[in-house]
C-alpha cells in the first residue's frame, strides 16, 4: 500500500506581511498526532510564545482537517481549529462540520497556520496553490451569515467559506467562526482571534484528489459503513429530529439547564423539543460532507420580533438559549439562534451569559438603568435578543458581558461568582450535572473548560447509579480518549453516538486510507498524548494552574436542585475532591492535576516535561 489520507503539505500564512508558503508535513507529526486536533495541539505548543496575549498579532491560529476528512465514509466532514483561548487563557479549540474540511484537503493541505495580523480587514482566499488577500473593508461590520452569502456571490458557489460576525470583530471572548450558513466552530473564542487579526473570512477551493492507500478496499469499507448506517433503526427515527430529539430525555432525567442552571427541569420543554421543531419550523434536513444522517435542521421561524431562516436550533442551542433563559416556544429559540448566528456568538456561552445577566437583574445586581430602562425577565425574547446585541457590539453593560460570566462576576461581585456557570472561564454546555458525577468530572476536567463533547457520560451515571462515585472518573478518562480521537481523524462522531455505529469501523478503515499500521489501541494512545499535551499547554500559559481550575461553580456544590426529577441533589465539595483525586491518580498526574514527568515521558513528551519544569512545576 502507498501512503494516503494526507495531502503532505502545511500552508503557512502571515497576515502582517501578506505572504504565504507551503512546507512538507513532518512525518513525526503524522505518526504521533494523527491530524486535526492533534496537529492543532502540537503546533500551538511549539509556536505559541508562552504567556502571549491570545489577541495579540503574534498569536498563532491553526486549522486542520484530519486524515479521514473528505474521504468516502460517513461523517468525514469535520475540521478542527485552535488557538490560545481568549476565553480561558489556556488551550482552546473548536471544530465544525460543513464542507470546509474536504475543500482544504482538495486544495492540497493538511493544516493551515495563520500568524500575524492585517492592518485592515481581509479575506484569505486559498484557491489550490494560489493564496490571495482580498480587502474586506466593506464586509467589516456585516453579519457572519450575510458575509458568507456575499462572498459566495463574489467568488463563486464552489468556494467553501468561513466567516466571523460583529462579535468576532469586537473581540467578544466567546465569538465563533461560522461556515455553511449555520455550522460553527463555536467554543473558546476562536472568532475573537480572527477578529484580532482583522481576518473576516477564509475562502477555500481545491481541485486535487485525496490519495488513498488501498482505494478498492477503502471504498468497499466506506460503502459497508454507509449501508450499515442506513439499516440502523435510528436512521429513520432519529434523523428527522436531529439532536433536538434528546430534549425530552434530558428533562426526564433531570439534567436540562433551566434558568441559569438554578434547576434541571423545564416545565415548558414540550414547546421546544424535537417534535416542536419538526412540526412547527423545520423546512428540511441539512447535512455536512459525507453525512448519511443529517443532524442539521434548516428552519423558518416567525416571531413578533421578526422572521427568517436559520440552521437549527440543535440541542445545545435549545438548552442554553431555550431552557436556560426559559424561552418557551421553538420559534423564539430559533429566532434567538438566528440572531446569535448572524452576530457570530457561540450560542452555548451566549445563553449562559444572558441567563447570568437575567439572574443578576432579578437579584438587583444589575439595575434597569444599566440596560436602557428595561426589565430583564425569564422567558422574554426581547430581553434575550437585547442582551445578545449589546454583547456582540460591546454596548454599555455588553462590554462587560462580552468577557464571559467568569469575568463579569468578578466585576459585579456580591456573590454572583457562585452562579457564574463555567469551568476555567468557559461557560457550561447543555447538561446539568449535580446528579451525574461522571458527567460532572467530565465537565470539570475537559481541557478547554466546561464543554460536553470530550466526554459525555450521563448514561453511564444512569446505568451505574447516579449517587455513586465509583468508576466515574475512569469512565470520563476512557471517553476523553475515544471521543477526541474523532476530532483528530477529522470525523463527526454522531453516527457512533447517535445510532449505535460500531467504533471498530473507524479503526478498520484508517489503515486502508492512510497505509499506516496503527491499531485502535495505537490511535487511543495518540489521543491520550494529545490530552496530556493540551493540559500541559494550559499549565504553561496560566500561572498557578492546577486543581483550583477544575472546580465547578459553587451553585453545583452548595445549592440542592429545587425541583424536578433530581430535586434535592448536589455534589458537595468533598465528593468533587474525591472525583478529582481519583481522576488525577488514574491519569498519572500530580495531586494538583499536572501531568507527571513519568506520564509525559511515557507518551513521548519529554520536551513538554522539561518545559513545565523550567516554569516551576514539580512533576
Amino acid at each position, binding site marked *: 500500500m502507498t501512503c494516503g489520507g494526507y495531502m503532505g503539505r502545511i500552508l503557512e500564512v502571515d497576515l502582517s506581511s501578506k505572504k504565504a508558503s507551503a512546507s512538507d508535513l513532518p512525518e513525526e507529526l503524522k505518526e504521533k498526532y494523527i491530524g486535526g486536533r492533534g496537529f492543532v495541539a502540537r503546533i500551538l505548543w511549539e509556536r505559541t510564545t508562552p504567556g502571549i496575549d491570545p489577541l495579540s498579532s503574534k498569536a498563532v491560529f491553526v486549522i486542520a482537517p484530519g486524515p479521514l476528512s473528505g474521504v468516502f465514509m460517513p461523517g468525514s466532514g469535520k475540521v478542527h481549529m485552535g488557538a490560545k483561548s481568549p476565553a480561558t487563557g489556556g488551550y482552546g479549540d473548536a471544530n465544525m462540520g460543513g464542507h470546509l474540511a474536504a475543500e482544504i484537503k482538495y486544495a492540497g493541505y493538511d493544516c493551515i497556520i495563520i500568524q500575524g495580523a492585517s492592518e485592515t480587514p481581509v479575506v484569505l482566499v486559498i484557491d489550490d496553490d494560489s493564496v490571495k488577500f482580498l480587502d474586506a473593508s466593506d464586509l467589516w461590520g456585516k453579519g457572519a451569515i450575510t458575509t458568507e452569502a456575499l462572498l459566495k456571490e463574489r467568488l463563486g458557489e464552489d468556494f467553501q467559506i468561513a466567516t466571523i460576525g460583529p462579535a468576532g470583530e469586537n473581540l467578544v471572548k466567546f465569538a465563533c467562526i461560522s461556515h455553511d450558513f449555520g455550522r460553527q466552530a463555536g467554543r473558546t473564542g476562536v472568532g475573537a482571534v480572527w477578529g484580532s487579526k482583522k481576518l473576516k473570512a477564509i475562502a477555500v477551493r481545491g481541485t486535487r484528489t485525496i490519495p488513498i492507500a488501498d482505494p478498492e478496499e477503502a471504498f468497499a469499507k466506506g460503502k459497508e459503513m454507509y449501508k450499515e448506517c442506513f439499516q440502523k433503526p435510528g436512521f429513520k427515527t432519529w434523523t428527522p429530529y436531529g439532536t433536538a430529539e434528546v430534549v425530552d430525555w434530558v428533562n426526564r432525567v433531570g439534567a436540562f439547564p433551566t434558568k441559569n442552571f438554578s434547576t434541571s427541569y423545564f416545565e415548558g420543554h414540550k414547546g421546544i423539543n424535537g417534535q416542536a421543531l419538526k412540526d412547527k419550523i423545520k423546512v428540511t434536513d441539512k447535512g455536512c460532507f459525507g453525512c448519511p444522517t443529517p443532524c442539521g435542521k434548516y428552519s423558518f421561524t416567525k416571531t413578533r420580533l421578526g422572521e427568517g431562516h436559520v440552521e437549527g436550533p440543535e440541542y445545545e442551542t435549545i438548552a442554553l438559549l431555550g431552557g436556560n433563559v426559559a424561552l418557551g416556544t421553538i420559534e423564539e429559540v430559533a429566532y434567538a439562534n438566528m440572531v446569535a448566528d448572524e452576530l457570530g456568538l457561540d450560542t452555548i456561552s451566549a445563553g449562559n451569559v444572558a441567563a447570568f445577566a437575567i439572574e443578576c437583574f432579578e437579584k438587583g445586581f444589575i439595575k434597569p438603568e444599566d440596560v436602557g430602562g428595561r426589565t430583564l425577565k425569564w422567558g422574554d425574547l426581547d430581553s434575550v435578543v437585547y442582551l445578545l446585541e449589546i454583547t456582540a457590539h460591546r454596548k454599555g453593560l455588553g462590554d462587560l458581558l462580552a468577557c464571559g460570566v467568569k469575568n463579569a462576576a468578578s466585576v459585579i461581585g456580591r456573590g454572583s461568582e457562585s452562579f457564574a456557570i463555567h469551568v476555567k472561564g468557559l461557560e457550561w454546555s447543555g447538561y446539568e450535572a449535580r446528579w451525574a458525577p461522571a458527567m460532572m468530572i467530565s465537565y470539570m476536567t475537559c481541557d478547554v473548560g466546561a464543554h*460536553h463533547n470530550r466526554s459525555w457520560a450521563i448514561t453511564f451515571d444512569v446505568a451505574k447509579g447516579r449517587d455513586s462515585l465509583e468508576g466515574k472518573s475512569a469512565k470520563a478518562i476512557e471517553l476523553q480518549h475515544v471521543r477526541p480521537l474523532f476530532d483528530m481523524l477529522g470525523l463527526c462522531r454522531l453516527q457512533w453516538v447517535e445510532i449505535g*455505529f460500531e467504533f471498530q469501523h473507524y479503526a478498520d478503515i484508517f489503515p486502508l486510507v492512510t497505509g499506516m499500521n496503527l491499531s485502535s489501541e495505537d490511535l487511543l494512545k495518540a489521543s491520550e498524548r494529545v490530552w496530556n499535551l493540551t493540559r500541559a499547554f494550559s499549565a504553561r500559559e496560566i500561572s498557578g494552574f492546577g486543581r483550583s481550575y477544575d472546580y465547578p461553580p459553587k451553585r453545583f456544590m452548595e445549592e440542592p436542585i429545587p425541583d424536578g426529577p433530581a430535586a434535592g441533589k448536589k455534589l458537595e465539595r468533598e465528593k468533587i475532591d474525591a472525583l478529582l483525586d481519583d481522576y488525577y491518580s488514574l491519569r498519572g498526574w500530580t495531586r494538583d492535576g499536572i501531568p507527571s514527568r513519568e506520564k509525559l515521558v511515557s507518551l513521548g513528551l519529554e520536551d513538554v516535561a522539561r518545559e513545565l519544569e523550567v516554569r516551576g512545576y514539580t512533576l
Partner: protein
Amino acid sequence: MRAVLRISGHARTFFPGERDYIEVEFQANETLADILVKLGVSPDLFMFGVVRDEKVDLDYIPRDGDEIALLSAVMGG
C-alpha cells in the same frame, strides 16, 4: 407473549452479557419500561423504542412477536 429487543452500539453494555439481541417474555399490559426493569436495566437509559419503523415511548405496551429497537440517549455532539 414474546418480543425481541434489539440494542446497538455501546448501549449493549447496559444489558447482561452485552448482547445486541434479547428475547423477552412479558404479560399483557406490561409496558416496554416494565420489561426493561425486569431485565435489571433502567428505562432512563433510553429515549424511545422503534417498532415497525415508528417511534414508541417507553410506556408502549408491546404486542406478541414485536421486534423493538431501543435508542439510547448517547448524545453530546
